């Protein structure tokens, strides 16, 4: 190794360089940590049921939310083109949803859906403006029978497992 035979800097010098390196490293690591943390904070997507959304009140406006629930019977209104309005509920809360995407083939009443978007003000009341609408592909999720309460745990699982959402 040629490196070994060459005259090298004194040990004190080496120590200093090493200290400097470690310091620079620490500063860089902290800077990276801060950038990453704020990046995460700004881009959180909340997985909420209609009850969660209602409970969070003002926080729902502007936040990115993945909302999962059942399409309320009789609530689907198609306004021509791909504009669809409907109500998502979980037995406790009902949230009006407006979506600008073509609903998938199997979209209908009483089916589990996941919509991604945020709450916007519409006159006095809020409406969930969504740019993504998915029907659950989850084999295990069974929509509850009429009259039966919605299983919250099942619902949460469905929100997590529905694939194909892609924010852009």
């Amino acid at each position, binding site marked *: *190794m*040629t*490196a*070994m035979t060459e005259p*090298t800097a004194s040990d004190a010098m080496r120590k200093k360089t090493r200290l400097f390196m470690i310091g620079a490293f620490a500063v860089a690591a902290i800077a*990276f940590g801060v*950038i*990453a943390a704020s*990046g*995460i904070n*700004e*881009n*959180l*997507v*909340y*997985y909420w049921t209609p009850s969660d959304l209602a409970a969070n009140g003002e926080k729902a406006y502007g936040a*990115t939310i*993945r909302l999962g629930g059942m399409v309320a019977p009789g609530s689907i209104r198609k306004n021509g*083109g*791909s504009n669809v309005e409907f109500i998502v509920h979980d037995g406790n809360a009902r949230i009006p949803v407006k979506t600008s*995407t*073509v*609903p*998938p*083939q*199997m979209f209908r009443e009483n089916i589990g859906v996941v919509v991604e978007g945020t709450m916007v003000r519409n006159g006095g009341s809020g409406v969930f403006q969504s740019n993504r609408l998915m*029907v*659950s*592909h*989850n*084999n*295990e999720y069974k929509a509850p029978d009429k009259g039966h309460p919605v299983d919250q745990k099942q619902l*949460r*699982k469905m*929100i*997590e*497992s529905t*694939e*194909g*959402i*892609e*924010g*852009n």
Partner: protein
Amino acid sequence: MLAPLGRILILASLFAAAAGAFIGFYAGRTRSAEGLKWARRFAYGYAAAIVAATLVMVYALLVHDFSVSYVAHVGSTQVPTWVTVVSLWSSLEGSILFWGLVLGAYITIATFFTRGKYEEYQPDAIGVWLACAAFFSFLIAGPANPFHTVLSPPLDGPGPNPLLQNHVLMAIHPPFLYLGYVGMTIPFGFACAALIKGRLGHNVLKPIRESLMLPWIFQSVAIMLGGWWAYEVLGWGGYWAWDPVENASLLPWLTATAALHSIMVVERRGILKGWTITLIQATFLLVILGTFMTRSGVFNSVHSFTQSAIGPTILGFLAAALLFTIGLLAFRIDKLEVEGRMEGAASREAMFLVNNLIFVLLTFTVLIGTVFPLIVEAVKGKQMSVGRPYFDSMTVPLGALLLFILGVGPALPWGRANAAQIKKALLPPLIGAIVFVAAGYAFGARTPWTLLTLAFGGYAAQVTLGQMFIPMLQRMKNGDSFGTAFVDGQLRRGRRRFGSYIVHASVVIVVIAIAISSSMRQQMELHFAKGQTLQAGGYDLTFVGVEERTEPHRLSTIGIFTIAKNGKQVARLEPRMNQYQMMREPIGSPDVHSTALRDVYISLSNIDAANETASITVFISPFIVWIWLAVIALALGALFALIPPRRPAVILSPSAATSKDPVPNDAAAETA
């Protein structure tokens, strides 16, 4: 009958692995040659048992023996044979059995090829491999047992998850992923052995590098296949969504790539030994973390299976492996001998270091974004995910920087260089940068990040091509003909160099293709009446009609579209809805018309009951195919670099014998 047979074989594999691991570590401690011999025998024994167990399972699947619990769970007489075979890895228990099989194959190959070599490291390495094997055999024997006997077997089973049967890529993506994931066990074993011995000698670098490179190649292809599968199946026109499972496959790849680079610095300079070992160990830990994330159901998605008795067990193994490696590193890393030192900031080794830092930053970025929701859920019980903008905004600059280093690094010489040399090395490739930016601008690229990527890509392309052919040009200067120089310099002696720069060139293509395809993608939603023609991005799309097709396992509703450009029909696309027997809801399956310049991608949203109207989403994305093709080129280049260079002593052909020109720089060129 098959279920008890499989179970006995699994228990045998567990015994062989556990005993072999114990003997291996014992032989490492006592340096007993006899112990090493027995450790090797147990390694082969483990492999034989696990291979036999897998064969029993495949046989049970093929003959539809529903008295085997796994077959009852995923088998079906209604599905095609290829789906039956593929169902070996389509569900939790089977996939862990498959893991054991792949590990058995890797351990056999590694044990066989290290026979009579690396005696210092081999016993401990075998000990580590078999300890991992013992854990997975334990999983198969206990929490993830696929060989339960079903007392009253059903007449038919449900078949594997329909989303997995929806595309043939599902048959090849998981094996590649396992070949990548599982293979990382082998370099991990060598790295641990080096730490246990407190020595990372020059001779053991070769098996480390080779055993890291092979799974790395599989992993690269697996990541690409995963993206391709998502693109072909999921219907949102993209290939990467920073889904936790996708990230799980990317994380070990990032650290392994960093390690492959830092190994070169160890080879050349004798520095970064502890760092390299740490990267290899991190790779293995990330593999186990990835396995935990995908196999425990903590993230629900198409990849993960919801039964999760397995989760805590894998988590326990991860914790044990983490403690083991941290302990080893803490007590042993200072023992690794230091041979050289860093010479200057503008040297190739310094660029290697920068490359490594960026890879580690990328790893942390992805890791934090992936794990953060898990931690929040565990601590606060709230569900959320980290949105795509986080990953994009963090990784795009780091990726661009990496591309920059990919250009600058190889241009700089090893060791010290003076200002004139540096200038001479760094200035000419600016031409390449300008050419690429101009070409991209002419093609329509406008976003700053895309143009910057093109600039770095052009710079890197010129450097890469220049470096790639140095051995050949040298030989031609010395009077060799083009043919001899190419065969000798590139294919025979300079394989490692040539292969490595093919990898670099492929990376340049992949990064540029990703930048262009994601920044210039067009998306449109169109509503058709039958026979209607609509325009989208310069193409005329016509909705011809609807066809319904019945297959044994599914019913497909197919929308038929023709695509014409300038009045000439270029393609006929058949996006469809597949209704599987065992599933309530249909699954969409998009169709793509791919050309070198752009893809036209149609995803069916809706067909009305009378088959008279259709709604589709059209994506027109440039350069997509180059991502798939370049990753295949990358794999081939890396494979080529992996073939050991032919030693000058082995002269087989007369042309090599008559060539009296030794080319002094050759050995250096091969390891560059």
